[in-house]
């Protein structure tokens, strides 16, 4: 597992040390990777907690996520308040409405 995972990380070494500046179109594609990567983690983390899709009222992450988004918008660029607000909301909702 460690070896195959390391292989997936090798492009950092190969591209940073050898590759020429990429074509402008490739550069624009690479620029989109952070947005796409963050979105992939957020959507699956909120909509598929535990691995299966849960678009239902009992998925409390669906309520904690908008709280996190609002705090992230208001306090642009500050991680800790957004993480804290989202996590505390999820804990409180579970305590109030959880099984």
């Amino acid at each position, binding site marked *: *597992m*460690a070896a*195959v*995972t*390391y*292989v*997936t*990380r*090798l*492009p*950092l*070494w*190969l*591209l*940073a*040390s050898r590759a020429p*500046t*990429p074509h402008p*179109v*490739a550069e*624009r*594609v*690479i*620029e*989109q*990777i*952070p*947005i*796409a*990567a*963050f*979105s*992939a*983690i*957020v*959507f*699956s*983390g*909120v909509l*598929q*907690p535990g691995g299966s*899709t849960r678009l239902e009222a009992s998925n*409390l*992450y669906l309520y*904690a*996520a908008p709280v*996190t*988004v609002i705090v*992230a*918008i208001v306090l*642009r660029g500050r991680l800790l308040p*957004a*993480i804290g607000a*989202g*996590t505390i909301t*999820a*804990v409180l909702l*579970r*305590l109030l409405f*959880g099984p």
Partner: protein
Amino acid sequence: MSARPVGQARSEVRAGIVESLPLGLALVPVGLAFGYLAHTAGLSWWLASLMSAIVYAGPSQFIAMGLVGTGAPVSAIVATTFVTNLRYSLFAASLAPHMRDAPRARLPFLGHAVADGSYAVTIDHALARPERPRKDQFLLGSFVVSFVAWVGGTILGALAGGVVPAAIAYGLAFATPAVFIAFLVPYIRDCVSAIVMLAAGIGTVAGNEYLPAGVGPLLAIAGASVLGGALLSRPTRR
């Protein structure tokens, strides 16, 4: 080497550590959850910690534990790990242009530092402050925090994960999406970034539902990035 570059390099390590502290706080509960899961799957605490240290790839470790539970063969676990972690190639490709001033000898080691959290903090830093040198040092600082949090969380979880109340564990598990929401929000500035976000997010959810483990996020991230790049490369109308 003169004193100034050494000082700059050290300050970048420090910046990487400081800017990654919120991420580290968020990683501890996830490591805790993994340690507990590994413990319940029959792994000793030191084996679970070793796995976290040398694989250092949370999502694939959770999937591997699930496969261990179903009695899947080693070859299936290794193949699934590879596919699940292929997204790191995309992350590495996106970080590479910012690492051109890094000493070549360091890059093979730094490859191990490319994981979801450290990638997010480092690319955010690189895009926000392109004038700062030695992003490799920043990545190193971020790696130190993430590694300690992830492996430390795993050890705690394997030894004492069962004592965390369910409500707290449920809330703490939301820390990972919360971290990435906080990173994502400032990037959604226009129509193209919103389209990329929706394409990657919906594609990942659909892929997770209908494709083998790890394939969905990989295709969704690659596809959404190409879509965004293509939209930005359209000739503008006059």
